[in-house]
């Protein structure tokens, strides 16, 4: 009877072995996956078991932590002036995860980053709790405030960058939300309301929303004309008949009002925002060259700031659509950040710097563990052509559609835009303004403003009337801190 007993012993051994193999599977092979599972509340429990590190602007924390006394989460995230800063910080919620910087730099903020290993170990030995590191941003508090206040109650977004480095100085989106309201464990109601809100307060319009660029795109078209040698002199007459028929169609392209567009020079055409001139430039260059120029400015690929900005697009299209795209009224769409990059590249003498908003990561003991160095993304236009573009953009502000952006004693270049949209252009147009300011020290700021619901005005002046003043106050805010 011993033979079967021995076999039973083997069978029992196999049962235990199966358990051991399974245990290795879930505790070793799958461990990391299970640890990071989105339903695993340990992640959140750990995240809020000590005060989070802060997100810092101009040396001041714009976030904070508050003790809750709850069982699961000892601390809760708080935000100072949350609505204004939401497009920068994102939110960090005990229930609904996190996004933007709060999510991307979570490891540093919670103190779990590998580079904080030494700090953690020292703290553990000395019996101190784990501490989170800080994220120091490139933002400029005054510029942000100017942008947020300037947008006011209207729906829109502002992106401002330092053309010399790519530092993001302002990133505003309205209507906004206060991340504090969804930070806690019992904020389901507030969360659902935000999600259901038709105005999408949680949408970061500056990075995540694309708009038809309208006439602001003419800057890109002008750049393409110069770069491809279609026109060399911005003050020479162009070959621009009036009326002008869109290629392959019988449709006459209209200008906004009775403006001097026939054979107008690029300077005059930009000054008055001539659709016919730039439509024809785009048609003459063809779809491929236009796409190439747009891509050089950063179109058709996402930009990680590190918060990802969705790609602005300039797609392949047929001839009439391509001509319309040249005036920003076809299938090309842009984020406000992208248009700020266009203005910035022109202002920085053609050199496009990669936009970024996290300047430094700082350990709890104030050691800097990462310092972002500005990176060049490319040279969309030559320095010579950039200067020509600056000159004609400055004319726009001096005596064209963008006079509202003038600043005393400072050279400002800009471009207005009013993008039609909706079926038969029935929707309220988007008012655009892109601009830069120049001092003896190069250009410290380029800005793009878009305002969605400009109720009454439907002509090209909309951009100049609604968006330009916002751009102006943002530029002034930056200039005031520059000195």
């Amino acid at each position, binding site marked *: 009877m011993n033979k079967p*007993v021995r076999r*039973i*012993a083997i069978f029992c051994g196999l049962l235990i072995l199966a358990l*051991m193999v*399974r245990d290795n599977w879930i*505790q070793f092979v799958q461990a990391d996956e299970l640890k990071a599972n989105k339903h695993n509340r340990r992640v959140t429990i750990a995240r809020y078991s000590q005060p989070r590190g802060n997100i810092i602007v101009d040396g001041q924390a714009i976030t904070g932590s508050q003790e809750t006394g709850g069982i699961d989460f000892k601390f809760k995230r708080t935000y100072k002036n949350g609505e204004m800063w939401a497009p920068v910080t994102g939110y960090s919620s005990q229930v609904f995860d996190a996004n933007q910087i709060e999510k991307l730099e979570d490891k540093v903020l919670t103190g779990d980053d590998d580079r904080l290993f030494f700090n953690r170990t020292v703290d553990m030995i000395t019996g101190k709790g784990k501490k989170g590191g800080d994220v120091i941003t490139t933002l400029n508090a005054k510029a942000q405030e100017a942008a947020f206040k300037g947008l006011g109650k209207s729906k829109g977004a502002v992106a401002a960058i330092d053309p010399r480095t790519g530092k993001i100085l302002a990133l505003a989106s309205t209507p906004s939300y206060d991340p504090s309201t969804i930070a806690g464990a019992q904020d389901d109601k507030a969360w659902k309301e935000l999600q259901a809100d038709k105005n999408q307060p949680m949408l970061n319009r500056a990075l995540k929303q694309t708009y038809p660029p309208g006439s602001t795109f003419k800057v890109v078209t002008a750049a393409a004309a110069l770069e491809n040698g279609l026109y060399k002199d911005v003050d020479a007459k162009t070959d621009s008949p009036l009326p002008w028929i869109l290629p392959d169609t019988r449709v006459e392209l209209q200008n906004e009002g009775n403006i001097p567009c026939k054979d107008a020079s690029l300077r005059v055409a930009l000054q008055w925002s001539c659709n016919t001139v730039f439509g024809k430039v785009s048609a003459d260059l063809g779809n491929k060259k236009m796409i190439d120029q747009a891509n050089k400015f950063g179109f058709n690929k996402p930009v990680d700031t590190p918060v990802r900005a969705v790609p602005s697009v300039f797609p392949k299209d047929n001839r009439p659509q391509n001509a319309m795209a040249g005036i920003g009224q076809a299938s090309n769409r842009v984020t406000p950040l992208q248009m700020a990059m266009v203005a910035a590249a022109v202002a920085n003498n053609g050199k496009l710097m990669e936009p970024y908003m996290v300047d430094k990561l700082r350990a709890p003991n104030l050691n800097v563990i990462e310092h972002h160095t500005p990176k060049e993304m490319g040279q969309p236009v030559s320095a010579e052509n950039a200067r020509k573009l600056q000159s004609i953009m400055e004319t726009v502000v001096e005596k064209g559609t963008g006079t509202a952006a003038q600043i005393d004693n400072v050279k400002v270049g800009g471009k207005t835009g009013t993008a039609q949209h909706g079926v038969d252009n029935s929707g309220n147009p988007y008012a655009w303004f892109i601009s830069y300011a120049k001092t003896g020290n190069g250009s410290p700021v380029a800005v793009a403003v878009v305002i969605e619901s400009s109720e009454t005005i439907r002509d090209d002046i909309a951009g100049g009337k609604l968006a330009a003043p916002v751009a102006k106050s943002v530029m002034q805010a930056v200039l005031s801190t520059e000195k």
Partner: protein
Amino acid sequence: MSAISPMPNTTNTTTISTAGAPSRRNTELALLAFAVLIPCFAYANVGLAMDGEMPSGLLGYGVGLGLMAGVGHLVVRKFAKYADPLLLPLATLLNGIGLVIIWRLDQSPRLQARKFFTASATNQLMFSALGIALFVAVLIVLKDHRILQRYTYISMVAALILLVAPMFFPAKFGARIWITIPGLGSIQPGEFAKIVLSIFFAGYLMVKRDALALASRRFMGLYLPRGRDLGPILAVWAFSILILVFETDLGTSLLFFGMFVVMLYVATERTSWIVFGLLMSAVGAVAVSTFEHHVQQRVDAWLHPFDAFKDGSSDQIAQALMAFGSGGVFGTGWGQGHSDLIGFAANSDFILATVGEELGLAGVMAILLVYGLIVERGVRTALAARDPFGKLLATGLSGAFAIQVFVVAGGVMGLIPLTGMTMPFMAQGGSSVIANWALIAVLIKISDTARRPAPAPAPSPDAEMTQVVRP
């Protein structure tokens, strides 16, 4: 293992040695010291981790566990001198660690915030003491395990009553495996039935084994039993299915059927029984799970544990898996995990998840090894036993123990569908710990008889290896 093997010649287990094996009682005592010390360290560790100070109950706990182990040891020394020296320390270790985990989960604010929360550690300590008392009683009262053979059919009736009774009591948590006595609490008769039933199977199969083994036809390399010999296995199978249907408990059903097949195989030495058994349990399980809603739910929860977050069903398995995963290789340390997120039954059915999270892969492997060792010592006892009844009984008990560990741990780790059984010795629950102490007592008694030096001649007829087939 060689250090524990009583003698170099132990492989020759059926030979009756007159030389007299060493009793190994001092080995047992030394091991017991470890088995008491380790849980005490664990207890201190929990207190230090959770409150930052030595727990005030440490002395009481240490003394209590020490006393239990001491009494157990003294009784073994007196009444089962040649018993296997590992069984008692291993069971004590598991019991001790189980108590620490239950106490640790009692401290969890998250569990304390639940409705119907009661601290269980004190009760469990009392149940463990009752378990040891039963252990002592079995050792003292049961002079020789062969006496049990006389109660073969009484055991059958007792087992039937124990198994059927829960059907008349209300279902708890979706399974009818409890007998609820208002005011006193509830007991899980299945745990006791396990022992009583193995006595019946051993007694029955010892008598019938030749008929079952010899009268068969050969077909495709398998010895097929005669139709009428299929009766018993069919009866047990049908009974297990009935348990499954009426008590909606896959675990109990699997345990009893598995135990029967194991014992049948050992008694007859026919592989065909195993094949039959596997086929029949597969057929039964599949058939029942197609129409039994509760079983179906369990299977679904096993296949898609994380769906619970979508459809709002119980997320216990998912939580247990995440507890294991979060523990990783070395675990978070005592008292620092969040296995209490499992919520309901965290300290009973799911107790292994706490081991997984706080002691890590290393800890679970150690615990599984301890369980494996208990099974191994049980099977070794079966090998060493000189009488077929003892062999069958020891195999049945250790087989059932192994199957139970597999079914529970496998369920908690998502290897098989979850069933309503408890980790022997560790899980919170009185019936389980008391019954398992009795099980260890029976194994110890068999091993004592097996290793005891041969008495004066006049061997009992039961000890003969060949037997007359009695009608």
